[in-house]
C-alpha cells in the first residue's frame, strides 16, 4: 500500500476511539500545543500563507526526491490539523505528494476546517504542499 494512505488509515483508526467532538478537538488542540513545527527563521513573509481567519507558515526541504515539511499557525486548532497533514505528507516521495488524495480529513470529521469558506489558510497550504511535490518531481524527471 502507498505509504501516504497507510498513514491516513492509521489516523482514521486512532480517531475512531474518540467518543464525541470534544475528545477529538482536545486531541487536535494537544497536537497543536505540543509540537514546535517550524524553525523560527521560516516564520516570515516568504513562508506565510494568509487566511482570513488564521495564518499558516510552510517550509519545504528536499532530499533524494523526498520532501519534508515544517509548518505552523497562529491558531492552535489549525496548527493541530497541520500536524496531521505534516505527519501524512512529510518525508514522502515528491510524486506521491503531488497526487495524494487526502481522504482522512473527511473521514475523521474535520472537513469543515479544510473548506475554502473557512479561509484559515489550510486549503492554500495543502495546495502549496502539492505544488512543492509537483515542482520537485518535475525537476527530478
Amino acid at each position, binding site marked *: 500500500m502507498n505509504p501516504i494512505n497507510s498513514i491516513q488509515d492509521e489516523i482514521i483508526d486512532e480517531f475512531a476511539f474518540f467518543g464525541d*467532538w*470534544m475528545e477529538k*478537538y*482536545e486531541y487536535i*488542540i494537544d497536537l497543536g500545543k505540543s509540537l514546535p513545527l517550524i524553525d523560527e527563521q521560516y516564520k516570515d513573509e516568504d513562508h506565510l500563507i494568509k487566511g*482570513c*481567519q*488564521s*495564518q499558516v507558515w510552510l517550509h519545504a526541504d528536499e532530499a533524494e526526491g523526498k520532501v519534508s515539511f515544517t509548518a505552523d499557525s*497562529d*491558531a*492552535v*486548532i*489549525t496548527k493541530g490539523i497541520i500536524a496531521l497533514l505534516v505527519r501524512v505528507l512529510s518525508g514522502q516521495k515528491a510524486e506521491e505528494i503531488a497526487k495524494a488524495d487526502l481522504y482522512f480529513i473527511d473521514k475523521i470529521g474535520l472537513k*469543515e*476546517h479544510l473548506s475554502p469558506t473557512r*479561509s*484559515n489558510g489550510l486549503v492554500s497550504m495543502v495546495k502549496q504542499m502539492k505544488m512543492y511535490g509537483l515542482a520537485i518531481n518535475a525537476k527530478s524527471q
Partner: protein
Amino acid sequence: MEVTAQQAFDIDKIRKDFPLLEQEMNGKPIIFLDSAASSQKPAQVIDRLNDYYRTGHANVHRGVYQLSQEATMAFEEARELVRQFINAPSEKEVIFVRGCTEGINLVASSYGRKFINQGDAVLITAMEHHSNIVPWQMICEERGAELRVAPVNDAGEIDLDALYELLDERVKIVSLVHVSNALGTVNPVKAIIDRAHELNIPVLVDGAQAIPHTQVDVQALDADFYTFSGHKMFGPTGIGVLYGKEEWLEQMPPYHGGGEMIKTVTFEKTTYNELPHKFEAGTPDISGVIGLGEAVRYIQSIGYENISRHEHELLVYATEQLEQIEGLRIIGTAKEKASVVSFIVDGVHPYDLGAILDKLGIAVRTGHHCTQPLMARYEIPGTVRASFAFYNNKADIDALVAGINRAVLMLK
C-alpha cells in the same frame, strides 16, 4: 385597556416570527449571534417573497398587461415605504442597489468621475469596512486624488479634532460609517455632516449597521448620501438602498448602462431616464425590493423605540457578563454603542474560539470583519464578535458566556 409599548414588545412572540431560530446547528439549538453579518428573516418577509413568485411575478415598468402593472405597483409601493422609512423628501432620491457595497461604489465611481480631480482628496475614517475604503482607493488612484484617513482612539471613537483638521477645501467628499461593524461605535455623523457642510463638502454615510438598530432620518441628518443593505435589516439578500440628494444625483453621470436607465437610444447618442431610474439599469431585483418593503413594515410593526430599548439591555447585560471572563478584553468601548460586542481572550486565537463555539451551536463572527486596517490599529489579528438583533434574548448571552468558558478551558 391601553397597551404600552413595553408590554407590546413580546420577545417570545417575536422569536416565533423567525423560523431559523428554531433550527439546530451541529445538533444543538442554534444561538444566532451574527446578525451584524446578516440578520435572519421573519416569516412575513419569507411569505411575501413566496407569494410574489407564486402569484405576482412579471417584469416591471414594461408590460401593458395587468400582471406587469401590479408587479410595478408593488415595486414602487416598496420604494415609497422605504422613502417614508428614512424620511427622504422624494422617491426620486431612493435608488435600489444590490447592497451597501454597491451604493458606495456607485457614488465613488459616478460622483468621483464628475467631481474628483487631480490633487483633490477624499476623507474616510480608520474604522471603515473594506467596502468604504476600496471604492475610494480605486477612484482616488484613477483621478490622482489623495485618500485621507481620520484616526480612531483606543476606545474606538473617531478623533474628531483630527478629522476636522483633515477637512479642508481639497476634500471633495467625506465618507464614513454610521455604526462600526467591528466595534459597535455609533459615530456622531450629524456633527460631522454639519462641519463638512460649512465647507460645502458632501457626506456619504454607510448605514449598513445603523438601520437595523436605530431610526434613520436622512433629512434630520442632512446626509447627502445614505446607503444600507436589505439583508442586515431582516430583508432579502441582494437588495439595498442608496439615498442621495436630488441636487447631487441630477449632476452625476449614470453608473451602469442598459435597459430601464435610458430615455432614447440611437447609435450616435443616448439620453438618460429620470431619477431614480437613471441609476437602475436592467431588470431590477423585483422580489428583493418587495421583500425589503415587507421588512420595513415588519420593523415598523415592532417599533424602533422597542428595538433600541431591548437591544440596549442586551448590550449592557452582555458587556457585564463578558467582562467577568478572565482574560477577556472588549475591543471597542465607545460611549455610544450599538448591540455589537467584539472581544479577544488572552492566549486564545479568535479562530479557535469560533470553531469550538460552532460545535456548541453558537454562531459568532471571527476574524478581521473586513476591517484589516482597524485590526492593525489595535495590533490584533482579529476578534470574536457577538452581535445582537431584537430577536435575541438574555438566554442567548448566557449560552455564549458558558460556551466561551468551556472553550477557554479546552484551549488554554
